């Protein structure tokens, strides 16, 4: 009794008579769109180019003074803390979040490591483990509030920043542990301040740790399932969930990881300063976000690489050292970095159009 024709419709018979080739595109890409395409694939190229240009320019202006193994490794030393905290920040930003509490976690964990050793007389190794545990715990609370309670990361970490910083001052009673005391009683706390010399190059263990963390994370993000899931969650959490990614678990693990890395930064901070000071490291929040943004990691999540963050941190280091050696007012550094931040985000937006 059905009246309509079933099966392929009449007009579909033409399908099989047409040429068998499926749509192919002969793009005549202009040079500009070709560049954009390449940048879209590997966004860390931009900061790498800026870094190389900056080094070359300062090298030409300042000559051998700047272009020496000593000066270049000095930059690495100076960005070590920012680089480590930036690695934690990168993880969070890749999930389309932001962590404003990274600097505060770093300071609190360094205070915990110091006070546990000197106030309670715990073995330094155990105190360091406790510091890392505190970092992980704060990270877990951040992650829980973001993933389970579904609060915006900006608000959660803004609150956590204040809470952690206040805890830091209350707990430490604003008391600094002197470098000499640490040196005699608990040298383990200062280990990341020790240096290795290779010719003129001077590297602290802190700088080496930064490089190890960055390269390890670069591997994890690129080569493991967890890393791919971090990108998927930042890209489109709904799609990731439907495709079978455990979004909440990934988010929480990212914040815990960030907390642990911040605690390592806290340990490195003791090495850098020699002492444990609850008032140190106030600018690492902003520095880490600066490194991430200049490094081409998109604040909208899912795009960018952690190597870009390293280049971003190094660009800031090169500018500070180069302009410092040149003898300008340090405000010029901030001015230039401000321009770079805005330029980096503008480039990110431009690159995104390649997808459209």
């Amino acid at each position, binding site marked *: *009794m*059905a*009246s*309509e024709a*079933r*099966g*392929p*419709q009449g*007009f*579909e018979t033409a*399908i099989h008579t047409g040429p068998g080739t*499926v*749509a*192919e595109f002969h793009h005549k890409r202009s040079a500009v769109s070709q560049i954009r395409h390449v940048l*879209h694939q590997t966004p860390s190229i931009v900061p790498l180019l800026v870094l190389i240009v900056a080094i070359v320019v300062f090298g030409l202006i300042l000559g051998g003074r700047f272009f020496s193994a000593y000066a270049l490794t000095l930059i690495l030393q100076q960005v070590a803390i920012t680089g480590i905290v930036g690695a934690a920040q990168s993880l969070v930003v890749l999930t389309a979040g932001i962590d404003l509490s990274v600097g505060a976690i770093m300071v609190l964990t360094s205070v915990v490591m110091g006070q546990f050793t000197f106030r309670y007389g715990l073995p330094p190794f155990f105190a360091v483990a406790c510091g890392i545990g505190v970092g992980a715990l704060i990270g877990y609370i951040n992650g829980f509030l973001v993933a389970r309670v579904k609060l915006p990361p900006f608000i959660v970490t803004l609150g956590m920043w204040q809470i952690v910083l206040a805890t830091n001052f209350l707990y430490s009673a604003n008391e600094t542990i002197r470098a000499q005391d640490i040196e005699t009683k608990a040298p383990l706390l200062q280990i990341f301040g020790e240096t290795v010399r290779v010719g003129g190059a001077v590297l602290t263990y802190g700088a080496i740790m930064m490089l190890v963390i960055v390269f390890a994370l670069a*591997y994890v993000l690129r*080569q*493991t*399932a*967890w890393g*791919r*899931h971090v*990108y*998927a969650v930042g*890209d*489109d959490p*709904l*799609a*990731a*969930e*439907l*495709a*079978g*990614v*455990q979004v909440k678990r990934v988010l929480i693990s990212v914040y815990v990881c960030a907390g642990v890395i911040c605690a390592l930064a806290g340990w490195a901070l003791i090495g850098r300063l020699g002492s444990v000071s609850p008032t140190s490291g106030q600018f690492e929040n902003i520095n880490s976000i600066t490194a991430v943004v200049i490094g081409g990691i998109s604040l909208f999540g*899912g*795009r960018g690489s952690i190597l870009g963050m390293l280049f971003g941190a190094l660009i800031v280091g090169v500018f500070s050292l180069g302009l410092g050696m040149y003898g300008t007012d340090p405000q010029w550094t901030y001015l230039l970095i401000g321009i770079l931040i805005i330029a980096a985000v503008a480039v990110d937006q431009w690159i995104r159009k390649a*997808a459209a």
Partner: protein
Amino acid sequence: MEPILKARGLVKRYGRVTALDECDFDLYPGEILAVIGDNGAGKSSLIKALSGAVRPDEGQIFLDGTEVHFGSPLEAREAGIETVYQNLALSPALSIADNMFLGREIRRPGFMGQYLRMLDHKAMGRIAREKLNDLGLLTIQNIDQPVETLSGGQRQGVAVARAAAFGSRVVIMDEPTAALGVKESRKVLELIQDVRSRGLPIVLISHNMPHVFEVADRIHVHRLGKRLCVIDPKLASMNDAVALMTGAKQPEASLMAA
């Protein structure tokens, strides 16, 4: 015959809106069951309940006779139910291969995979390419290109290929031809029949009556949050189907599927 996927008395409310109202559902082994219904009839809610994307407020779901409670799409997937969602559930910045293997990545054998958890990009790329070739739906120059560089039809192809490749019990497709051209739609319909001939039952949600009547063995008509009736496409006409789902006609025994 026992249904492979069965639901009884499903209820899902969103605030004061009742999307599913004591809804029943039966899918038999080896068949293509089409689900049709007006916009807002609750088709998507039914599909989401079956695929684990939402948890029904009341009611039971049985897979192969045993009751299941899916807390997430991952659990449904592990039970062998693959779904092609209307929004495709692809991550735009990830590559085609990454997307196909999202949540079920293959690790390298040996030390690298076991301890360093390194992914086997080569194997995943090869399998992804094979699956897409089986589908014959698209020419992909590069399996590592990000999904956002693909056209709408190509993305649909990736999503369909992913479900067809990994579904072991049931494949659910929500509007799989909605974004496709005539030729690509034909490919997807052939693929659906291909999947059925491998013995895998399919739930097909579609507004396209010619497509539904061409491939479906039975048609589940959804109206006002519940199953109105199940008709046999050999007995009923497209007019009957549209009349039933819009409420212009009451179910008649002569059109029902056995």
